[in-house]
């Protein structure tokens, strides 16, 4: 504004705080310097969750297990949804899909309200605001790890061993993380600006599950244009990838790339949107 009148100290080791318009830089370097805060907030989320629940860690075991039982009874026994491979029990098949799905849906419901829930932090301390939704997403990794152990047990019980594809699991965990984070960035920022987004999230999660191949195998969707549209949903790629790496199911092939590109677009769009909006978070939250 008044650069003409008073010489600025810009570039003499001073940080300048002033009004900026439009798109901001992502500030990922700054985010890196705040990694310890990120770890602490993630750790807090995990600690608090298990301390408040009566059953504690047992929940993390019980929840996916019960879901799998319900899925098997309702979809497999009553509705006749079959696993694509006769040698693969539906219970294991659905659990392999539930594993990344529950991570994703949990991340969405936690991170959607994360900024508003941490309003006292946002208005009292400075730190890169990205730390909040990222920690909300990362906190789900503990549940994910526990579910993973349950799945291993389940596979062992059915006498199934993971194939050599299992070495690619970390890649698909990363893809699941990226997907969860991408959507979380959008939802958390939107929820600060439009407070009714939080009521939309449970509905969105439910809807999203039915367009993702959690309950049914992806080959129920005919190859071609419809399959391409379904693959635009990144969770289609993530779940397909998990089933391939864990159970040796058919690899989604080219459709996988559609999902990966969709994640990249969502993630970078989300990052930029978040950075653009974070300037007003402290004023409106």
């Amino acid at each position: 504004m008044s650069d003409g009148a008073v010489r600025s100290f810009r570039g003499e080791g001073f940080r300048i705080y002033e009004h900026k318009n439009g798109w901001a830089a992502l500030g990922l370097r700054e985010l890196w310097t705040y990694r310890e805060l990120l770890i602490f907030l993630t750790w807090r989320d995990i600690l608090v969750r298990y301390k408040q629940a009566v059953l504690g860690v047992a929940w993390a075991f019980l929840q996916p297990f019960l879901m799998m039982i319900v899925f098997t009874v309702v979809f497999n026994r009553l509705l006749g949804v079959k696993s694509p491979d006769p040698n693969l029990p539906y219970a294991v098949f659905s659990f392999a899909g539930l594993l990344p799905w529950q991570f994703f849906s949990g991340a969405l419901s936690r991170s959607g309200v994360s900024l508003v829930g941490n309003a006292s932090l946002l208005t009292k301390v400075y730190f890169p605001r990205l730390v909040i939704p990222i920690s909300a997403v990362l906190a789900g990794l503990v549940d994910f790890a526990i579910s993973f152990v349950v799945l291993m047990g389940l596979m062992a019980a059915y006498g199934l061993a993971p194939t050599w594809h299992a070495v690619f699991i970390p890649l698909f965990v990363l893809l699941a993380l990226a997907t969860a984070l991408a959507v979380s960035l959008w939802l958390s920022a939107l929820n600060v600006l439009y407070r009714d987004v939080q009521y939309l999230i449970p509905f969105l999660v439910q809807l999203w599950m039915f367009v993702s191949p959690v309950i049914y195998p992806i080959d129920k969707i005919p190859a071609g244009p419809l399959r391409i549209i379904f693959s635009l949903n990144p969770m289609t790629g993530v779940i397909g990838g998990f089933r391939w790496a864990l159970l040796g199911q058919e690899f989604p092939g080219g459709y996988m790339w559609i999902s990966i590109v969709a994640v990249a677009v969502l993630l970078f769009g989300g990052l930029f949107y978040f950075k653009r909006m974070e300037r007003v978070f402290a004023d409106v939250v």
Partner: protein
Amino acid sequence: MNDVVLRTVDLGKMYRIGGERQAYRTLRDTLAQAARRPIERIRHPGAAAHTSEMIWALKDVNIELGHGEVLGIIGRNGSGKTTLLKVLSHITEPTVGRAEIRGRVASLLEVGTGFHGELTGRENIQLNGAILGMTRAEIKSKFDEIVEFSEIGHFLDTPVKHYSSGMYVRLAFAVAAHLDPEILIVDEVLAVGDVEFQRKCLGRMGKVAHEGRTVLFVSHNMGAVRNLCSRVIQLTGGRITREGDPQEVTEAYLRDSLVRADSLESVEAAIAALPTDPIFRFQGIVVRQDGRPTLTVRNSEPVEIEIRYSVLERTRGFRVLFDLLDDDHNILLSSHHDDDAQSVLVVEPGEYVSTAFIPADLLAPRSYELRVRARIGNGRWLTNEGVAIPLTAEDTNDINQVFHDMLRPRLRPRIPWRTVRLSESAAYRAGDL
């Protein structure tokens, strides 16, 4: 190389829509508005697209702070103090102008930011430290010191939801007190905790200030501001309206924020003009001599100050007090209703009358001002401004009146004298030798 570590240039912060903050919208409103707008354009083609009330929480703020300066910021609630600290802490961005800062900043806008009731004291120390910008190594190295400072002892591994409010505050301040910044930004965190701990906090702040750190300190505690700060600014309506020597600025601030009662009848109006407080209310103040209400008193007789008030909540450390000022606004004395108490009083809710007696033969024949106030501990003022009551003392029967008229002493207590005649002709004998 310059010595400046913090500077603001024509800094301004505007909030839209009434109140202090910009309200969030709902998606429904936005959609409805988007749908209405084209229709409104057709109906009222000339109307501005969007008009909303705008409030400048800060305007034209120019501050330059050198290394090691301790700047006090005072002003009424809503004058922009906290907004200024938030801009300087990078929490919110200014609307116009800019702030330029060099060095590691720690801001303490609240005690215990990020504390979680389910976590233990130990866990909260680590978390809060990280939130305030300490590294893990720093937290580790200062951990024992923090625990000792906080005096929480063996409650370290108890969830803080089981702490008393005093313990909670002590722990939270202890973490903050061990930050090691080059610039410290503090907002009124000392208004909490018991008197003893407040003293400790002020001591710690003073130490930080004397170590050559740069400090920005917002407070309503004028005593603390005077003791700690090297310079003070007063904000009024978002602008700097006074700046300079702590003593002068705080006195001027107190003077013009006082509610004045010019006659005995107007005391009631002055009380009504005070900001309302959730736990305290004056009911009436009467100055009497010989049982009759009056504002002109004889200095040879005691003066009775009767203060009626109600306390709405059980309060520890509550006290009513009056200051006696001369006509140059020097405080001559200050007296609290609990001055005789052996320990901090806990006051139960109810209606009270406290009566003070200014003894006979204390006042000089001149005009004074009584300033009646109430506070909790040494921190929060319940009636920041207080009620000012003019009081005129008249001399009765003083053979040295003429000297007092010349020297105008501020008080004229009757000091006991004893004069003894030692011998009949000492002077004569001395001369004789």
